[in-house]
């Protein structure tokens, strides 16, 4: 399904995994940003990706717990960046282009790059 078609935001988009153009897992649709145009129907402008977007969706203790495990980052991915929506959301470019590889890159520094087949 292309984003230009009809979509159920809660049942068909929220909490779906996100893959970049190269098939790399780079997040989950943690929330959706709407543009309220005052009178006309609101438009989806961005996907919010990262545990920082959980605030408002989870009770306080759970937000605190998730922050300890996964941090509080949140990245805004433009709606136009979506290539396809099915059992995942596929983006039309690499994760780096949307800032979705930053956290992985930060942790990569701690991993030795030898010994694996």
């Amino acid at each position, binding site marked *: 399904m292309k984003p230009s078609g009809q979509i159920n935001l809660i049942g068909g988009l929220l909490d779906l995994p996100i893959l970049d153009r190269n098939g790399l897992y780079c997040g989950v649709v943690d929330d959706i940003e709407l543009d309220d145009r005052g009178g006309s129907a609101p438009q989806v402008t961005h996907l919010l990706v990262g545990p920082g977007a*959980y605030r408002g969706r989870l009770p306080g203790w759970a937000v605190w717990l998730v922050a300890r495990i996964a941090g509080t980052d949140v990245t805004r991915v433009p709606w136009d960046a979506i290539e396809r929506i099915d059992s995942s959301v596929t983006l039309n470019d690499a994760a780096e282009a949307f800032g979705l590889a930053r956290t992985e890159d930060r*942790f990569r520094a701690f991993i030795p790059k030898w010994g694996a087949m």
Partner: protein
Amino acid sequence: MNPLELTLGIMTAVGGFVDISELVFAAQAGSSFHYALIWVFAFATVGMMVLGEMSGRVAAIAKQPVFNLMRHRLGLKLGLVTLLASLVSNLITCAAEVGGIAIILHLLTGAGYRLMAVASVVVLIATIWVLPFKWIERAYGLLGLFMIVFAIALVKIDPPWTEIAKGFVPQVPHGLSDKELVTFAYFTVAIISAVLFPYEAYFYSSGAIEEEWGRKDILTNRVTCTVGFALGSLLAISILANAAQLFGPAHIDPQLPGSAALEVALPLGRTGLLLALLGMLFAVAGAAVETCLANAYSVAQFFGWAWGRHKKPWEAPRFTIAWIVLMLVALGIVLAGVDPMKLVEYAILFSILVLPLTYLPLLLLARDRHFMRDHRNGLLANLLGWAFFVVILIAAVAAIPLFILTSGGQT
């Protein structure tokens, strides 16, 4: 369907079927209730076939492992509850497996239990680091085939085969006291939990993604789940039947994994004992790897991190850190001095409580027309799946009272 791949897949499923909980509970069940609990193993194995096939099929068709879609299906709050519950359950199970390896290595080498626990975790971490997914799965699964020695031992002692065959018929033995009836019920729940461990669904469906399964693998998935799990279950039933024949009449309660190996030593001597211990070692080590990876898969998939051991460890850094930390925490639990058999009991208890949360989203996904299209559940799969779900629910409700009433299955 590549026949070599299929054969290897089946053999891996057979060798990887038994873990520390099945070892302990099969031997105890046979010793305490003779052949009367064989049907529970058979029944739970059919459940594992049905639900395992579904998790492989969902992964092959929707191209997403169970946990990835679980959050989408259950929502963030219930998804998080499922994640936390399965983390605790799998962590305790992983610690129980590490404790089991340490006991077996202690029996094999005579070295200290704690030292062997540390050594085993070093080897497990090195294995996961060095080997790609398929090799990890195959290596432990195929080496676990040494467990076939339990089936050979059973043939050698020539048990009453008619009695064993009768054990496949659902039954509650006559003449049990109230206390024995409660213990029988506890063993029933424990065996269902041990066969249907939640980590197996997470590991199996994530493994299907690791191996890039697609529509062409639907038949491989079905055959591996049915034939592989059935033959694996027969190994567990061999342990039970050996214990019924050898331990039952002597009123021996085989509470330690090492006791199960004695079943083989009696008919097959020293070589049989060595093969049994090696089979147990690799089977339990394989389960430790699976529980650890299953936990890391769950966390990574829930938060949308890069994951998988088909990637190099540095290509999925947070996933790599997750499985290393989880393995070290499991080791920490063992080194803290918690009795490994207590860990087995807790693993069984926590797992059965998590099972409904594990399999509900799977059942919803497998029948979902949007995700599964022409490969969604048919009438039979739906019927069997939901029937087993009801059984799991009943077992989960009964687990805590039975655990308390029997002090963890003390006979």
